Each structure stands twice: as structure tokens, then as C-alpha cells.
């Protein structure tokens, strides 16, 4: 019978049914970091349990690392304690750790793919909700809690309910200046922040066929913002081309076998889905969030809704709460909102292609007076290649601060934080109240090029107009 990739991967990794009806699911690859793993190692020690598959476990440090003063000991003693705890746990349990001195450290969802650890047809878990990123490779990847990190360390499995699969077809060509970030913000706007509950999202259609791996990762990354615990794209030639020759990719004869196996894991053409959604790529605008959930987004030329535009009382309450926090008037244009900070980075948009795309437009431009603009490469590898290409110089000349690799201001567990009610144009993934480190701080999510345009003009604007995208410049 025809099957989706999700079903094939699930069936290949299902160990058995548990007493409560859940499935004991084998996790092929376990990624860990400093924030959600220390308690799990503690629980293992308390129970006298060993790590079952240390060779299938990979660690990096990302959430708490400073991006400017990176010499240890860190000024924040708690952060220093966390990196040391991870170092010790990895050493004690013989787990590969991409530490800060390896040249390979970075955000866990950027390190996995760039090292070739993330592979099609596999299951991946990590104590971080953006683990859905790895689905870009045709893996089924789950964000898990710390007790489940413990479960994976001790048993290499988790207890899980099987997900339904929603196929999201996006067909056609994205217009110039519209990026994969806009695609996922558009999808979340359409389907809502809880629309994906109980589903894995399978993204397909010609728009996805034509995307690079890094673009696919941006979309899969934010599946969780739409409530879907996992999101994936079927593996194809683009996937294999990306993985070939990476440090942990299969080599020689094993490579050819792996590619054949990976091809066979893709969804069968006539498989059935629990739901199908169709989206026309040409209708997607550069999208910006105006509120406090990722679903509260509008096209750059639209107005922010007024509270009375909500269809239900709870929607009206949500809009009112968001407008109050954001200090925006209902019905006002999203364009023209004055920003204080521009953040380019995160597991959503901190990859080399993001930094390259923006760099070609900002040469000869300057960040607006009074705006702090920071660029945080997603990994040391991204940073190193960017420096070799001279991108750091382009950013610095334009007035951006060029930082070290990490999660940084996406969630502000390191010193990079908004102050007071600063408004930030951000290429990250969450605009929750307080997300960027200040309880009254305000976040507007958008594509990297839209962040750069806001940095340069000092306000939220249409990057296509600022940079003449689609006219003089070839994308």
C-alpha cells in the first residue's frame, strides 16, 4: 500500500506498543545542548543508568554562549556552570561535543545538517522545539522535554502518539523579494498557531521542489509555530547534493546504498494524507508579524487588524492584548513602525545563504542612526565561510555588529537582550511577550532581507522598494 514518508519512517522505528497505547519509538539520532540536558544526566545518575547509544548522541552549546565576549570564564557564572556541566557530561559518557574550541560549534539545528549528521529516513530528537528543522532532509524530527531527553539517553526511545499527516502544497514561483521565511509565516497565518496540533506537516509542490536545503530548513524550523510537532520535505537530488561529502555523511559504496535507501523513503505518489492544503506561491507577500504570536502576521502592504475585526470573543481579546503589548494602533499600517534593534540570525535564518543574500543588497548602505543591528552567524562554520567570502566586512562597513555563533537574541539567554520596550525587527521565530529578554520588549518577525531593510531605514518597510529587488538587482 502506498505510504507517506512519515508512515515509512515511523514503521521502521516503531519498537512496540506500550500499555497506554502509545508507541515506543526508536530515535536514531539524539542531539543535545546545555539548557535541557543537565537535569536529564542528573536523573540518569540518580537511577544508575548508562547512555545506551553514546555514538548516536551529539552535543553542542548554543543558547547561553555570549557572542561578543567569548573568552571563558563567562561573565555570567550560571552560563559558565552550564557549559562546564555539558562538557563533563559529554566526557563522562563519551559523547561527541562540538565545543567552542572546535570551529564546529553553533546552533544545534545548524550544526546537525552542516556536519551531515541529519539524514533522510531517520528519526531525530532534541530537547528543543525547533528540532522540526531537520525534517527538511526527510527525517522525522521531534522536539522533546528533559524527561524525554533522559528517556532517549537511557533507552534511545520515547513514548509517543502517532501523528496524522497534513500535506501542504505550495505551487508556483515566489515573487522576487519573497523568501521561504515568508512562506512559513504565510502558512502559519492561514492555518493558525494550533492548526498543526496532532499533525506532522509534509511540505511539497513545485515551490518546495525548487528550494535549496537551507530554504527548506527555514520552513520546517517553524512548523512548531504552527502547532505541528514535526514538519518535513521529501528527500530528492537537492538533499543528496547537500549531504554529499559532509563529515558524517556515508562515504564510498555506503553513500550509493544510502542514496538508494533515502529515495525509497520518500512518500509514494499515490499515498493518502489526513488533510491537504493548497497554496499559490504567487499570492505570498513579504510577511511581517505585528502581534505576540507567530500567527499574527500581515503582508507588508496591509494594515494591522483592529480588535473588533476578530471573529470570536477570544480572537478579539487576543488582538487587543497584542496591540496593547506592541503599542500599535489597530488599523494602522504595519509599514513605518520605528525600530530600535535589528537581529539577523537564529536557527530559522542564521545560515550562510541568509547572510549572503542580505550582503549583496547592503553594500554601500548604512544602518540608520539610533538602530542597533547585529548579525549572529548560526555556527562557527557559517561564520568562517562568511569571513572567507568577506561578508563580515560588508556588514561591518554598513554598521552591523558582527558576532560569534549562537542562539543569541532569539531567546536572550545570553547577554544579547532587548532593553525596556525596544522594538526589534527579527529574523528569528518567536514574537512572544518577553521572548527577546525584556518583559516589555517587542518583536516583529520577518525575512532576513526585510530585517536589513528595517535596519537601514530605521522602520519596518518593503525591502523590495528599499533595495530595488526584482528591478536592477538579479536575485
Amino acid at each position, binding site marked *: 500500500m502506498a505510504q507517506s514518508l512519515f508512515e515509512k519512517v515511523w514503521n521502521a522505528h516503531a*519498537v*512496540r506498543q506500550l500499555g497506554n497505547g502509545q508507541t515506543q519509538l526508536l530515535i536514531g539520532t539524539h542531539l543535545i545542548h546545555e539548557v535541557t540536558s543537565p537535569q536529564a544526566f542528573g536523573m540518569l545518575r540518580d537511577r544508575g543508568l548508562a547512555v545506551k547509544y553514546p555514538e548516536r548522541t551529539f552535543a553542542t552549546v548554543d543558547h547561553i554562549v555570549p557572542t561578543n565576549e567569548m573568552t571563558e570564564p563567562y561573565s555570567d557564572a550560571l552560563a559558565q556552570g552550564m557549559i562546564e556541566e555539558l562538557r563533563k557530561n559529554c566526557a563522562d559518557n563519551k559523547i561527541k561535543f562540538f565545543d567552542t574550541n572546535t570551529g564546529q560549534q553553533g546552533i544545534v539545528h545548524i550544526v546537525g545538517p552542516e556536519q551531515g549528521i541529519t*539524514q533522510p529516513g531517520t528519526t531525530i530528537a532534541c530537547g528543543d522545539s525547533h528540532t522540526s528543522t531537520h525534517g527538511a532532509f526527510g527525517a522525522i524530527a521531534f522536539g522533546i522535554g*528533559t524527561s524525554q531527553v533522559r528517556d532517549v539517553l537511557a533507552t*534511545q526511545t520515547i513514548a509517543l502518539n502517532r501523528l496524522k499527516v497534513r500535506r501542504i502544497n505550495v505551487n508556483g514561483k515566489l515573487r522576487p523579494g519573497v523568501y521561504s521565511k515568508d512562506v512559513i509565516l504565510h502558512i502559519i497565518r492561514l492555518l493558525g498557531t*494550533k492548526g498543526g496540533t496532532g499533525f506532522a506537516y509534509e511540505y511539497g509542490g513545485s515551490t518546495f521542489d525548487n528550494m535549496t536545503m537551507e530554504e527548506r530548513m527555514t520552513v520546517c524550523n517553524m512548523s512548531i509555530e504552527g502547532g505541528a510537532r514535526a514538519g518535513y520535505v521529501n528527500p530528492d537530488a537537492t538533499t543528496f547534493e547537500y549531504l554529499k561529502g559532509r563529515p558524517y555523511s556515508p562515504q564510498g559504496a555506503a553513500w550509493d546504498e544510502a542514496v538508494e535507501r533515502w529515495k525509497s523513503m520518500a512518500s509514494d505518489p499515490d499515498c493518502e494524507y489526513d488533510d491537504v492544503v493548497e497554496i499559490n506561491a504567487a499570492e505570498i507577500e513579504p510577511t511581517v508579524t505585528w502581534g505576540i504570536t507567530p500567527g499574527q502576521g500581515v503582508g507588508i502592504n496591509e494594515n494591522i487588524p483592529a480588535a473588533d475585526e476578530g471573529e470570536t470573543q477570544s480572537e478579539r*481579546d487576543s488582538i487587543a492584548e497584542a496591540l496593547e503589548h506592541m503599542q500599535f494602533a489597530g488599523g494602522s499600517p504595519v509599514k513605518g513602525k520605528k525600530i530600535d534593534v535589528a537581529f539577523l540570525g537564529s536557527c530559522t535564518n542564521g545560515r550562510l545563504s541568509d547572510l549572503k543574500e542580505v550582503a549583496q543588497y547592503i553594500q554601500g548602505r548604512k544602518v540608520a542612526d539610533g538602530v542597533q543591528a547585529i548579525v549572529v552567524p548560526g555556527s562557527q562554520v557559517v561564520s568562517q565561510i562568511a569571513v572567507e567570502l568577506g561578508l563580515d566586512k560588508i556588514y561591518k562597513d554598513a554598521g552591523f555588529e558582527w558576532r560569534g555563533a549562537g542562539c543569541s537574541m532569539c531567546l536572550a539567554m545570553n547577554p544579547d537582550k532587548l532593553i*525596556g520596550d525596544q522594538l526589534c525587527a527579527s529574523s528569528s521565530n518567536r514574537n512572544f511577550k518577553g521572548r527577546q529578554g525584556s518583559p516589555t520588549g517587542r518583536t516583529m518577525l520577518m525575512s532576513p532581507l526585510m530585517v536589513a531593510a528595517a535596519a537601514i531605514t530605521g522602520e519596518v518597510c518593503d525591502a523590495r522598494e528599499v533595495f530595488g529587488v526584482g528591478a536592477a538587482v538579479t536575485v
Partner: protein
Amino acid sequence: MPSEPIKQVAGTGVYVPGDDIDTDRIIPARFMKCITFDGLGEYLFYDVRKTEQGEDKPHNLNDPRFQGASIIISGSNFGCGSSREHAPQSIMRAGFKAVIAGSFAEIFYGNSTNLGVVCVTATDADRKVLADAVEMNPQLEITIDVNDHKIWFGDQYITCDMRPGARSSLLKGTYDPLDELLEGAEQVNETAAKLPYMSA
């Protein structure tokens, strides 16, 4: 070692209004710089409860009438956002035993259930009836009957729902799955042996 079965949860309630209460709201990231979960209860809903100067804001969670509550009543998509178990850990460590919401985000739901924090859903209309009753009488005893899908308060009840796996685990005291997962070790090895990438 199975935990104590959880057949019902009883206590007083507190209403935390709003949909999409995300895990950053439940426990802001700055309080996750820790290597144990001890003490997290103190920071539950910190920015909802406190001003930037650390003073109490007017909120049900600060209202003396609702002190001692052990059941949170809230909106839809409760616990959305990050996978941080710090969120249900802080709820549990602040003395809460259950959350009644319109719906829950998936990862939060699983994390909570693993800790024995009971998460049940009820309709908007029913939650409003319950929240109004709690507002009228903060000392109102609420009883969530896990087996029976009912939330009793005073002489009335509303129906509630929970995922089948969660219900069965709570009733059997097997909501922490580690022991059962460990028992499957041999089958885990067999499954792994069939996967080239795991046996290479």
C-alpha cells in the same frame, strides 16, 4: 517502579485568562540558567505577575483570594512554543496539580503528563462557567475525575477530555514511561539492527 495512580485531582482554582499562553510566559528563558529544576516554582509566570521593578502586578495569580490554588484554568493552545520541561516543572513546583484549558500544545502536554501534572480540555462555554464560579467563590473545591471525564464543582459538573494514552497512564500510575521503555531494551536492539544507519 510505578508512581501512585492519579484518579482525581482536587483543590481550588485560579483563572489565568488568555489564549496562546506560551512557555516563555510560563517560565521566562532567563530563569532556565540552571542545572537542576529546584526552585523553578518561584518563577512561574514571573513577568505576568511582576513589574520590571519586581513589584506585584494586579493579577489573579497575586490575588490573596486565590492563594493556595492547585488548578489553573486558562485558554486555548496552552503551553505553545518551546519544548522546555521547565514550564510544567515550574507549574508543579509552584504547587499546581492540574491545568484545565481549551487546548494544549503537544510538547507541553506530553511533558506535563510525564510529570503527573493533569491536563484536561473543556469547551470555552464550560470553562467560562467554571471560571465565573471560581471568581464568585475562590474557595470553591474543584475535583477533576480522570476516570469519568468530569470536573465537579459545588453541585454541578462540566465534562472534560484528555488524550487516551495520558488518561490510561495516569490511572495506572505509569505516566513516567522510563521503566516501561527500559523493559523493551531487547526489542530496541532488534529494531536498531534492522536500520543500516544505526548498526553501521
